[in-house]
């Protein structure tokens, strides 16, 4: 069963009196362990597609399934639980909670899961921070960390709950090229080790080089999809 399954998905936004069609009749699926990039110019619909896959928005038409669950049938609370259990997010601007330390930012997502004991949460959080190379920095607030370190915290936060899927929105856009490459190498490594599905949106050539599957979007439609076979 695919992790993500889009069937004839369309998304429209109302802007004032007019309707903007952001995605048109998209059909694609992602399997477990894929390392895919959605590429395209600004306004092509990359972020909209990631929003829909991340259950942050609802489709206008068509069906979207995450782990076999039909999204449009879920209410707000069930969607929050679905995100909590199945989806990790890595944002372009890191989006760490400024009042929490690196450790607490990671531990926060585990605290959303009711059935996990606190000491187990703490252990997991420390372990994942170590894996992303932040051992010794766990008590620092986001403002005390560099951009690369913040993105590592964000990756640790996305990975700690061991989701089936991680969505990353231009994860290297705010990083210098060296740090960006380190981050991509880290994600690739984790993808290989844990078989977590990664989907990126990007403009970055380097990110595309790391991706095994590249989907091109233009004007809300898929113009190409290599299906995981690089030429």
């Amino acid at each position, binding site marked *: 069963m695919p992790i993500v399954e889009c069937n004839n998905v369309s998304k429209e936004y109302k802007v004032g009196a007019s309707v903007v069609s952001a995605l048109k009749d998209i059909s694609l699926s992602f399997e477990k362990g894929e390392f895919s990039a959605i590429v395209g110019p600004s306004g092509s619909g990359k*972020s909209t597609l*990631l*929003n829909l896959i*991340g259950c*942050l*928005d609802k489709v206008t038409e068509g069906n979207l399934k995450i782990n076999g669950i039909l999204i449009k049938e879920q209410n*707000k*609370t069930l969607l*929050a*639980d*679905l*995100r*909590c*259990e199945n989806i990790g*997010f890595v*944002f*372009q*601007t890191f*989006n760490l*909670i*400024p*009042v*929490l330390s690196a450790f*607490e930012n990671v531990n*926060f*997502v585990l*605290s*959303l899961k*009711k059935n996990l004991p*606190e000491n187990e949460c703490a252990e997991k959080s420390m372990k994942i921070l170590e894996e992303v190379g932040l051992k010794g920095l766990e008590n620092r607030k986001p403002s005390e960390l560099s951009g690369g370190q913040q993105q590592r915290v964000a990756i640790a*936060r996305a990975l700690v709950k061991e989701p089936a899927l991680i*969505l990353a*929105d231009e994860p290297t856009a705010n990083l210098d090229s060296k740090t960006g490459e380190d981050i991509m190498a880290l994600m690739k490594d984790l993808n290989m080790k844990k078989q977590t599905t990664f989907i990126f949106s990007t403009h970055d050539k380097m990110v595309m080089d790391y991706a095994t599957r590249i989907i091109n979007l233009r004007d809300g439609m898929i113009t190409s999809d290599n299906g995981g076979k690089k030429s």
Partner: protein
Amino acid sequence: MKSGYIYRMAFRNISRNKKRTALSAFAIAMAVMIVCFMKSYTTGLFNNVKNNVFSFETAHVKVINKDYLKEEKLMPLDLNIYGYENNYNEVIDLLKKIEGIKYVLPRTKFGAILNLNGKMKNLVGFALDQKLEYPVNPLKDKIIAGRMFNEYSPGVQEIVIGEILAREIGVKSGDKITLMTKTAEDGLGHMTFKISGISSYGISEFDKTYFYIPLSAAAKFLKMENEVIELAVYLDNMHRSIPVSKKINEQFYTQQANPYIAYPWEYQKDGQYYKMFVTLTKTYDIIFIGIIFLACLVIINTTMMVIYERMKEIGTIAALGMRGTAIIKLFFYESVIISAMGSFTGTVIGGAISLYLSITGINIAKLTGGGMNLQFSEIVYPRFGLDILLYSFIFGVLISSVCVFIPATKAAKIEPAEAMRGIL
């Protein structure tokens, strides 16, 4: 989500903008301080009125002659309680059989004239049994000069008069005054009394026109041997005055040609006055809600600003899987912490002011220029008590916390994609 985590986040969030938090807490503190002091003051005033009205005027139930009511303003001494065969004690004995009655005090209130260098001064006399009266109306404790009167015996005719009256007529304890009155036999009576003491109730009307003599002296002076004007009945529970009055009246009807009636405080003129104060106190509670609500507008406004500022953060935590209820809790806790800080400060300051004034008192007569013939003392002592402090604190926290639900619910309803539009 675990509440401890939300609480920790809330606690840290409020320290993000310390000045704004301080301003919100200050607004709540000011409002709670006003509420705390006003509650102490109104409770003090209310207790004062309650005490005065029930001690002097209405009792819990007043037993009087049925016909007395018709001519109450004239204070007719012939329409009195004379018992059934011998004296008023027969009625007291009857009353003592009824459950719920704590004290029965025989009293006679009458008009008298003081002749002072050719000028007449109208006074009101209170004839009472000082020993029986003490638990309810401790006149002895109100004497500021001299001593309590002694019971009447030939040659011993003593009186206690009000402080202002003594000043006005220029007398002190040990001096003598002669009073004239219309007796129960419709004749004119006069008696010269030695002033044994000067009393002060702090109520201008009382201290200016009231004097007190023993019932034994009134019996001679008013020609009321074995008779009194009223029996003031005090109950274990003042709110049972109507059913107890009913029982008393039922007992009275068993007597042949019964001339007496039990009259609960609720139906008396001064009882209505007390009831008005009860209503007023409730009105004050509504005003207090209004005061706190005004202060809460600052918290509501702050929370709305915070939500706007933290829109991206709200989107992020929602994206990470935080439920709407947890987001409401987060803002709710923030508000509870700020309002608890403000309410605590306000309660401490308001409590300190109330404590100080509960010792020194507030001279209402000075503030208002005097001249109020109302049933409260010129000096009002705000009541300082843990219940009032708790009331103010809980009141502040509760209202301001409830107020923040509106913006917090709004925050929880924001779609994560909307909040993060352009980010993911």
